[in-house]
């Protein structure tokens, strides 16, 4: 098994409020192998974006990382200085936001903005080299190179999102974090862009952490999927295994809530209730108030992750028997 490129260990994030800290991410551990695509799924507020931003240390106040390690290429990102972090961001780890299309400066052409990224990190020896590379990058994400001189308002939302991806690719990062990169786009454009990313990922070999609400999309696109619930990692498994034999009741519930194109006639159902408040999470297993399989121990003790296979783990008391 290769050495993981990213290894998140017991990562904790608190949001500090006047009423005391609120734990938004609670002892989460997750590994990413080089060139692997790992999906992160879960409801709003479950901590998936918080984790992504904590890895890059770009969580705005009042967030505080209150424990754990983030090992990337052997270095602990939580121990790096500000200049070291600045070099690492984008050169080794890039991120595409949901609003990447709005992150473009309206008064500069997209070519200039890609070239800016290259020049800022010393990745292009001359401005003509930067322009040439910018054109290559545009072509890579499926935009004709003669669009180099276009201003952001002359491009559609999908094209602008592609430019955002081109800028993320510009410095050949080893890891790209996609934080709901296609949520603001329609499904056709979404599929095109995801296929584009998948092709690039296979060609260039970077690792991807892919965050989305859309479980179906994620199962198609990822090698492995991690499911979060109320600030905790509840199950992680290879995509195929998760689809066919999810072991955590929450994951099972999520899967039942999404229709499958190829599956047979399955009754869709939703999980009753809503996620708990992180200010005052339930005792024991955080999912027990919504779980139809809950037993006494679920109300008392918090379950730990149980290894169910080489790459499959879930946190549920039912699995320890």
């Amino acid at each position, binding site marked *: 098994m290769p050495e993981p490129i990213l290894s998140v260990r017991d990562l*904790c994030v608190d*949001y500090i*409020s006047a009423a005391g800290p*609120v734990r*938004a991410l609670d002892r989460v551990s997750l590994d990413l192998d080089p060139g692997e695509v790992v999906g992160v799924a879960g409801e709003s507020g479950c901590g998936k974006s918080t984790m992504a931003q904590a890895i890059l240390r770009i969580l705005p106040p*009042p*967030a505080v990382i*209150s424990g754990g390690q983030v090992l990337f290429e052997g270095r602990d990102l*939580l121990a790096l200085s*500000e200049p070291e972090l600045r070099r690492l961001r984008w050169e080794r780890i890039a991120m595409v936001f949901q609003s990447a299309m709005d992150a473009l400066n309206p008064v500069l052409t997209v070519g200039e903005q890609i070239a800016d990224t290259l020049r800022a990190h010393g990745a292009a020896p001359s401005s003509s080299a930067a322009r040439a590379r910018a054109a290559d990058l545009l072509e890579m994400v499926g935009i004709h190179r003669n669009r180099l001189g276009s201003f952001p308002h002359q491009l559609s939302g999908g094209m602008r999102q592609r430019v955002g991806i081109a800028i993320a690719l510009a410095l050949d990062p080893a890891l790209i974090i996609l934080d709901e990169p296609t949520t603001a786009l329609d499904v056709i454009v979404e599929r095109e862009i995801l296929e584009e990313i998948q092709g690039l990922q296979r060609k260039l070999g970077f690792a991807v952490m892919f965050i989305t609400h859309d479980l179906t999309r994620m199962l198609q696109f990822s090698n492995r999927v991690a499911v979060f619930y109320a600030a905790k990692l509840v199950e992680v498994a290879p995509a195929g295994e998760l689809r066919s034999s999810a072991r955590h009741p929450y994951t099972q519930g999520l899967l039942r809530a999404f229709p499958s194109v190829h599956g047979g006639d399955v009754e869709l159902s939703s999980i009753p209730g809503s996620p708990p408040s992180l200010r005052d999470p339930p005792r024991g297993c955080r999912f027990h108030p919504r779980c139809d399989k809950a037993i006494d121990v679920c109300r008392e003790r918090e379950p730990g992750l149980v290894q169910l296979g080489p790459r499959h783990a879930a946190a549920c008391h039912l699995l320890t028997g």
Partner: protein
Amino acid sequence: MSAPSGGRSTGARAWLEAIRRDRRATVGALLLLFFALVAAAGPLLVGDPTALVAVPLQPPSAAHWLGTTGQGQDVLAQTVVGTRVSLLIGFAVGLVVVLVGSLVGVAAGYFGGRVDGLLSLLFNVFLVIPGLPLAIVMAAYLPSGPLTVAGVLVFTGWAWNARVVRGQTLALRRRDFVAASVVSGESSLRIITREILPNMTSLLVAQVIGSSVYAIGALVGLEFLGLGDVSAVTWGTNLYWATNDSALLTGAWWTYVPTGLCVALVGFGLVMLNSGFDEITNPRLQMERAWRAHLQAAGQPASRSTPVVAGHA
């Protein structure tokens, strides 16, 4: 994923609470409260400020705590009685300046087009006219009195506010929530008063405070130059009479230091208070306060990157 939103409470109690929490705001509020009390009750406690009570130019003594003026009047009584008119006019001018300025500014920014062109031209002209010389000229020609001075200060002071508010309105005008209220059929007046102005509360409060500092200073300045009603007892005329009686030449510091100190303390108090208001009207700063305290307790600087405060996993 958004951070848990800090509860935003409004109303008088929340304002008091925020002032109490911020040390600078507390100092400012106490100073202003002190001067408000002096302005309200002070004249009842001291004697007639214009009465000739003692030998002129006596230094502070047990009988006259702050000494006597060149005319033989009590300096303490003059300073205390002067507080009322000076502060009343100062704050009134501060409020009216912002009121006029924001009305013009909001109208220019919101309606745009020809309205904006005309109003912008107007306040730009006012901005390039040097304020103090115009104020002196106007105050010299108009009948003297506190109201004249107040009018002159509003006339020369509103344009800067109008310009700032216009800029802020232009920025807010393009936001989605304003577009949404246009689509939902709200009237222009309602959009301006419910959607746009509340979003600049902290700016407006800061402007009222800043304008009041300006107004009190300019009021005292004009009166010091003898452009007010020199027979009235205000901080400005106190200073006017002090120089008239050659206080600086004779070293009679007690005739001008008390008034000067009062002006400085009121200005200081207003600026201190401003820092507290900023936090009340900006919920984001309230959240950051707890965050900063948490980092401080851990002996960590507030860094640009997400800070790591290990210890309790």
